[in-house]
């Protein structure tokens, strides 16, 4: 669930001092995709409410296959998890990061794989003289 899809389902403050009577329930609108931002918000809410003695539901631990929501490949070049996998997944970026100057590395990663291909794509099908 991303920040955009988190909703405060129910909140009913009565009087300013009746803190114990406030009822707050959070419910995701869609399945939790494990975004980093949401997990951070969740952690803050969880620790704050626990501190004040509110009963808490069991925490869901993200699965090991989840991709990070955003990855900084080079300064100013931020890509989503799926895009990272497609563009840089099979590439030894760390080797190139150490062997290129920062400016050259940024130029390199900015351009490689910037056009998403389709499954089964063959270069000879597209680099061809039109009829």
């Amino acid at each position, binding site marked *: 669930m991303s920040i955009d899809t988190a909703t405060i389902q129910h909140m009913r403050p009565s009087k300013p001092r009746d803190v114990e009577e406030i009822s707050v329930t959070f419910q995701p609108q869609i399945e939790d995709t494990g975004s980093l931002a949401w997990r951070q918000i969740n952690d803050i809410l969880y620790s704050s409410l626990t501190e004040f003695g509110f009963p808490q539901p069991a925490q869901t631990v993200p699965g090991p296959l989840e991709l990070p929501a955003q990855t900084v490949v080079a300064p100013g070049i931020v890509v989503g998890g799926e895009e990272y996998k497609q563009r840089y997944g099979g590439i030894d970026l760390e080797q190139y990061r150490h062997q290129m*100057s920062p400016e050259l590395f940024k130029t390199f990663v900015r351009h*490689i*794989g*910037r056009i*998403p291909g389709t499954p089964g*794509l*063959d270069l000879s099908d*597209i680099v061809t003289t039109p009829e």
Partner: protein
Amino acid sequence: MKYVDWTPQLTVDPPAYLDANVLVGAIVTTHRLYPTCVNLIATLLMGKLRILVSPVSLDECLWATAKLAYCQLTHNPPNARWSKTIYLRWCERIFQSYEGWITAVGSMTKDWSSAGVPIEVIPKTEVLWEQVVDLAPSYMQEFKLSPADAIHLALAQTHAKTFITADSDFEAVRQNPPTGELVILHLVA
């Protein structure tokens, strides 16, 4: 002339002339040669090796990215029929939605140059161009290459020490290579 399948252990002798499929191959994902094209490009950039490109390469890159955009717009597979008539019909939509794809290769080579990579456009002189004009038809005849491929080979032969391509149409050269010191590096998955 020598024809060799590229491996990362091979040393690339500059200047290296790049076929369009190497440039497009590094910019478009999911095809089987993508990691090879990217690793080859990284080798060239890290070594600051002299890279040569030509208007013929740019022409082919522009056609390729325009076709990709067309296939994306129409949900056609990459091997869909592609013609100038189709391009003209879809030109406006292609640029409306995918101008960034069409300019991608040009933008990449300009950025390489700004980052200090020595990249040059050939042909460089009229004398060399005349040699290309003489060689291209003979390559068309001898190796049954298309005019564009024959011009690529002639440009490489007259300007470069290495010609890097992913096009298997140059396989014909492997059997009966003409004289000269050019090495054709063929990218394979």
